[in-house]
């Protein structure tokens, strides 16, 4: 079973890694951010698979952290959009 799960983790890595092509192509930052989002979810999936397959429960905490902060980059992106040039620059 462990081999199967490790293999599944490898496949998730390859699949979400392919998504990086969208990061290169764009065309908009929203598209690029989606590639990051997919890789974040994939990273969580890889971590849970490895944790169970390798019986390393500590790795679950990595997945937990990734999952908790999953939306963080997207939130940060939407804060810094061009429509809000004055944001943060009040002085």
């Amino acid at each position, binding site marked *: 079973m462990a081999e199967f799960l490790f293999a599944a983790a490898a496949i998730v890595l390859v699949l979400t890694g392919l998504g990086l092509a969208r990061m290169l192509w764009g065309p908009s930052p929203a598209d690029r951010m989606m590639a990051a989002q997919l890789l974040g979810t994939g990273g969580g999936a890889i971590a849970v698979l490895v944790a169970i397959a390798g019986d390393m429960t500590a790795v679950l905490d990595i997945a937990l*952290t990734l999952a*908790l*902060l999953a939306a963080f980059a997207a939130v940060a992106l939407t804060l810094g959009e061009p429509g809000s040039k004055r944001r943060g620059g009040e002085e």
Partner: protein
Amino acid sequence: MSLAVDLVMVLLILTAAVWTILARDRRDAVIAFIVLGLLLSLVWMRLLAVDVALTEAAVGGGATGLVLLRACARLLPVEADGALPGLRLQVAVGVLCAVVGACLAAVILSPPEPAPSLAPAVAAHMEDVGLKNPVTVVLLAYRALDTLLEKVVLVLGLIGVWALAPDLFWGGRPASLRAAVPSGTLTFLARVLPPIGVLIGIYLVWNGADHPGGTFQGGTVLAAMWLLVMMADLGDPPETRALRLRRLVAVGPALFIAVGLAGFGMADGFLSYPPGYAKPIIVAVEVALALSIAVILGLMVAGPAAKEPDQ
């Protein structure tokens, strides 16, 4: 199989790293950098360095992206400045990086056999400290001085950030982090996530004594939750003159130093822990440090005061 996985990882990392440099738009570069952080976290996991992977996941996922994207937003108006480095400088930096990279590669690809390591020595004395996570033992016992001084670096960094405030605004609130366009979704997230995140942050700190995790990871998660609340406009950044805030910043390093000095009377000297009490003392120091780290990181992202203090 495992070689193939490694190659895929290397390929992905190189892609993200090269794109970080090549991307024309600053914001695209930052997104690639966030991806790079995620990938690095996976690499540390692959290398079984779970503590480092956790740190990378927390810092890369929580703080770095936000800081950099915020910086991008502030830099946009001066984009026309034309302050990009010239071609000659770019080539010079490229050549320098290539030389350094080649030297590093040459050294790393021919490691000494067997690789020298302090790991056995670390393990041999762990019982004296009474914790089960070797990383925490190194950070809070063997090399406690470094850990302590690094926290002082953080405080100095915060002072450095604050120093950028105009005189008139000293002691006032940093610029608000809130979104330009109010978003119900964001508000929802900022109401639901922080309680869970705080729980996870505390868990990581507590868990750090015996399992991977610890102050920095936990503190970063806590900071991220606080920042989320500020971004959703559920709470403004606090006034930088508030003494309660200042004390939260100082409590971690101060307790660490106090415990260290108490070692002169109660144990074998500075930063040595009385036998049998090492674990509770270290956990107490870690809790205080995590609190300080969370507040410092949050304040650093919030930036210098940008409004006059309230009367």
